[in-house]
Every structure is written in structure tokens, then in C-alpha cells.
């Protein structure tokens, strides 16, 4: 980077503006993007219009399509809502907590499914291995990609909603989800509850990951 001062990120629009600049090139400076995400301090006035909740599961609300280079979205978690264990389809994933609380649990990739013709009852051997967990506070940022493992995100509160900001580069429309007890992998499409503040009309939004 040049010796000019680091940009001031006061609003969500400021953040988006800087992200466009960062993703203009081909290389992604993970540390710098982390810095940008951290500098933005959550202000509900910025993101309220994207915050649409569902009673049954968490929602994904697209904020910006980043000229195809990245997707920025708001995830809204009702009390006790959880994601499945999923990967990130070879993309970078930055996640920032804007309201409430979230817990992230990381897992190792399960062994390859190769020779599993004998599906006996001894599933204990294939339990997925947890490699770490953390509680996020408002304005915390965390980063993950496939080389670091898989994760599940959940709202640990039974009485409070949570809102998080997610940045994916490049954008992806499907990923894999995993059964914690067996490591069994399935493909899962990823859909939006709303785009740019407008509710999307889908027949059945069956997306399972963030």
C-alpha cells in the first residue's frame, strides 16, 4: 500500500466503497480486508433495512453484489437459530457480529468417504472432530476458508436475536454440508431471503449454510 493514511470507515456505505477498491485487483489482502471489517462499528441505522427475520431459521439478506467479485450480506438469527456444519466452496469468508451474540465451532474435514460400503452401526468412529470454538462479541470479526476447516455458527441466546455481516470472495451459490455424527457430506444450494432490502419470492428457500 502507498503511504497515505488508512481510510476512515464510519458507515456501512464507507465500508462497501473501500471493499470495491480492494477487490478491484486480483489479489486479496486478507489482513487489510480484516482491518476494514473491524474498523466499521456496527450502527443499526445503516443496516436495519436489510434485517429481515424468519421464525424458523436464520436468513441471508444480500446487501451488495460487489461487481461479481464479492458478496456482502446480512444474516439474521432468531433465538437458538443454528447453521449446519459447512465449507466455503474455496472462497474467503469474513464474518462480523453486528448485534447480539454468536458462537462459532470449527471442525476438521472428515476422512474421505471412499470405502464406506459397509454402513454398520458403529458410527461413533466417524464423529467429526472439533478443533476450536469461540464466542463473538459485537464488532468482532472472524475469518475462515476451506484450508482452515469447516464451521458451524449458532445464536447461543434463547432470548435475543443476532445479526452478522458476511463477506465472501468470490461469491458462491452452493457449498457442502456435513453431518456431525458421521461426517457424511451433501451438496447444498445457497439462497437469499432478501436482496438489497427486498424480500425474494422463492418457493422453498432450502439453504443450510452461511
Amino acid at each position, binding site marked *: 500500500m502507498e503511504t497515505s493514511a488508512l481510510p476512515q470507515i464510519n458507515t456501512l456505505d464507507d465500508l462497501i466503497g473501500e471493499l470495491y477498491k480492494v477487490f478491484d485487483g486480483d489479489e486479496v489482502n486478507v489482513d487489510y480486508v480484516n482491518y476494514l471489517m473491524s474498523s466499521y462499528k456496527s450502527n443499526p441505522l445503516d443496516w436495519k433495512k436489510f434485517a429481515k427475520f424468519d421464525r424458523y431459521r436464520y436468513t441471508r439478506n444480500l446487501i451488495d453484489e460487489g461487481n461479481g467479485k464479492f458478496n456482502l450480506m446480512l444474516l439474521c438469527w432468531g433465538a437458538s437459530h443454528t447453521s449446519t456444519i459447512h465449507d466455503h466452496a474455496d472462497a474467503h469468508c469474513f464474518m462480523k457480529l453486528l448485534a447480539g451474540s454468536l458462537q462459532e465451532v470449527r471442525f476438521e474435514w472428515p476422512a474421505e468417504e471412499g470405502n464406506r460400503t459397509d454402513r454398520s452401526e458403529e458410527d461413533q468412529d466417524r464423529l467429526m472432530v472439533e478443533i476450536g470454538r469461540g464466542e463473538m462479541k459485537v464488532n468482532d470479526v472472524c475469518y475462515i476458508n476451506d484450508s482452515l476447516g469447516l464451521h458451524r455458527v449458532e445464536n447461543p441466546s*434463547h*432470548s435475543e436475536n443476532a445479526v452478522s455481516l458476511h463477506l465472501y470472495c468470490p461469491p458462491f451459490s452452493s457449498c457442502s454440508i456435513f453431518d456431525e*455424527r458421521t461426517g457424511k457430506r451433501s451438496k447444498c444450494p445457497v439462497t437469499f431471503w432478501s436482496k438489497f432490502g427486498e424480500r425474494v419470492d422463492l418457493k422453498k428457500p432450502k439453504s443450510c449454510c452461511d
Partner: protein
Amino acid sequence: MLDTDSLVVHLRNSIREQHLQQKCESLRTSRRKGGDRGGEGGGGRGGRDEEGPESEDSTDSIHDTVTKKLLLQHNMLLSLPFEITRFSSLVSLDLSNNNLTHVNDFLLQLPDLQALYLQNNNLADDGLPKELHTLTKLRELNLSGNKLTRVLPQLCEVVGLRYLYLGGNEITEILPEIKALQSLQVLHLGGNLLETVPDELGELHQLAALILCDNRLRSLPRVISNLTRLRSLLLHKNNLCCLPVCIVKLRGLAELSLRDNPLVTRFVNSCAREIMYNTPSLLELAARVIKLKKLPYTSEDLPRNLVHYLSSGQRCVNPKCKGMYFTSCVEHIKFVDFCGMYRLPLMHYLCSSRCSSKTPDYYRALSESDSEEDEPAARMKRVLLG
């Protein structure tokens, strides 16, 4: 951040402003229409609008009949001000994240209230009005994050309730009276102290989401399979070893969480076979033969207690076995694939410990067609693996 006294001042000002606005509006309209009373939302009670808004007396009796939603969350309220009742058309009241220890009975004077948000306060079992059912339009009630120890009886009387949130309390029991909530679609009881749930839960036929995570449940009643509209069943972080086999009937289930339960291990499975089997009696063996060979009998042939006994027979769950059992069976835990995403340990009852898919006790010929009686077995066949 408001305390109750500051809130009172704000509410009074708000009501007065609203009243003034309505007065101006109706004056304008009456000028246009030559004395005809127009405008929306009504103009308060009876002849109140003729009185001047400046006098203190009139302020106490005017109502705001326009405001539908009152957002008072994240303040420091210890109690509700009586001024709340002046908002007589209120549909939604958000009092979450305050310090309320009780909700006064005068809340019941809001007849149009449909949604009441009280999460994250300090409400104990005696903190809610007893006659909650007078709020006949109440559809959503959020009492999460309080100090309740039971699903209060007055909650079970609000029969129009659709969404009931009780997460993060200290609830140890669900009253059977809950079956009165026939319109309930979402029941959130996560993060409580429940060890069992009553069979009456199975009568909440509209239930689409049942959240029981983070409790101390040891088992689930079989009647859970009656909840045909269930889309989401959250059971993670409990003490469940296995699930009732009829859970596979819940075809609409899109979300089932089971992690952090001591679900059955291989060791327990092989133990179960030894411990659970009680040798069949002569009565049982005779009954089995009668059923197997489909020997005809009528209520005139046999004493009533035997007829009753014969009708209590259960099909062996092994789809390749057409055996039946009465009181003597083996509890067997088998892992079953569910919806292509989950492998569940389910409690099965086999007719004997030797019965397996390779060597069924009572072999069913492939040519025998599936009668209506065989439906449950046929369904298990679709679901069981290998």
C-alpha cells in the same frame, strides 16, 4: 434510556400531540365539508374533542386511538405506567430488555393487542396478569429471558396464541393444559430445565416449530409423531439416548438437531439385547400363532379379555418378518437414515432377539402383497438401510 417516570412524561406529551393533530385534521375537514366529521382513525372518545387540549383535566381522559405500535425496548422501566392504557388501539407493544418485575393488570385494557414482547426482563411466575385470556386478539407473546419456572396456567388460556416464546427461563414443567393452544405454530422452550414433556404436546396439531434445545430431556413421547406440520425440531443439548421410532413419520421435517445428546454407542446397543428380553409366556406364543396363521375368531368364541389381548398385538418392525409380539419383545436400537441427511438411533421392538433382516423369525414370502396392515412395515423398509 427511560425510567418509568420519564416515560410517563413522554407518553403524556405524545398523547397530547396526537390529540392536537387529530383536532387540526378534523377542523380542516369540517371546514371543507361544512361541519361534516371526516378523517381517519376516529377522534378519541365521545365528545372529548370539543374540549381544549390545554386543560390538565382533559389530558387525563383523552386517548390516542391512532398509534398501533409502541416501541419501549432497551429502557430502564421497572413497571408499566398507567398512561399505556390511553393508547387504546395498540396492536403491538415492545417492552423487551427492561427491568420489569411485574406486568400490571391494566395491560388487559388494551383490547386490540396482538403482539406483546417482554423478553429479557425480571418477570417471575407471579409477575403476569392472571386474566391474560381477556386479550382475545393476542397472537404473539415473547417471555424469553425471564425468571419463569413453569408454563403458567394463564398462558394456556390464551387460546388464539400462535407464537409463544419462553426460552431462557427456569421452566421445569409444561402443564397438560397446553393442549388448549390449538392455534400454536411456534413453541420455543429452549434453555430451560425440562426433563420430560407431556403427551399433550402431541395435540398441538398446528405446530411447525418445536424448540426444546438446551434442556434435560431424557426421552420424547411417541405422540410427537402426531405433529404432522412440524418443520423444525430442535433437540440439541439434552440427555436423549434415542428417539421413538415413529419420528420417521414426520415427513415435513426440514430441520432436526440432535447434537450434544448422549446418543447410543455400540456398547450400549449390544447390551440392550441381553437385558431387555423377557421370555414369552404360553399365552403370548399362542396369540402369536393365531395372528400369524390368521386363524379366524369372533368375540363370541373367546372371553373378552382374550379378544382384547389379541387386538393389542404389535407388528415386528423388521420388514422381512411378519411376526407379531404382545408383551414380549426386544428393545433394539437401530441406526436409521432420515431424509438423506441424518442417521438417527431409533428404539425398535423386534419380536425376538434372533430376528434380523437376514434371518427373520417369521419369514414373509416375497409374493405376499402389502396389505393395509403392512403399511408401517413398508414405510420402515423405505427408510432402513441395507
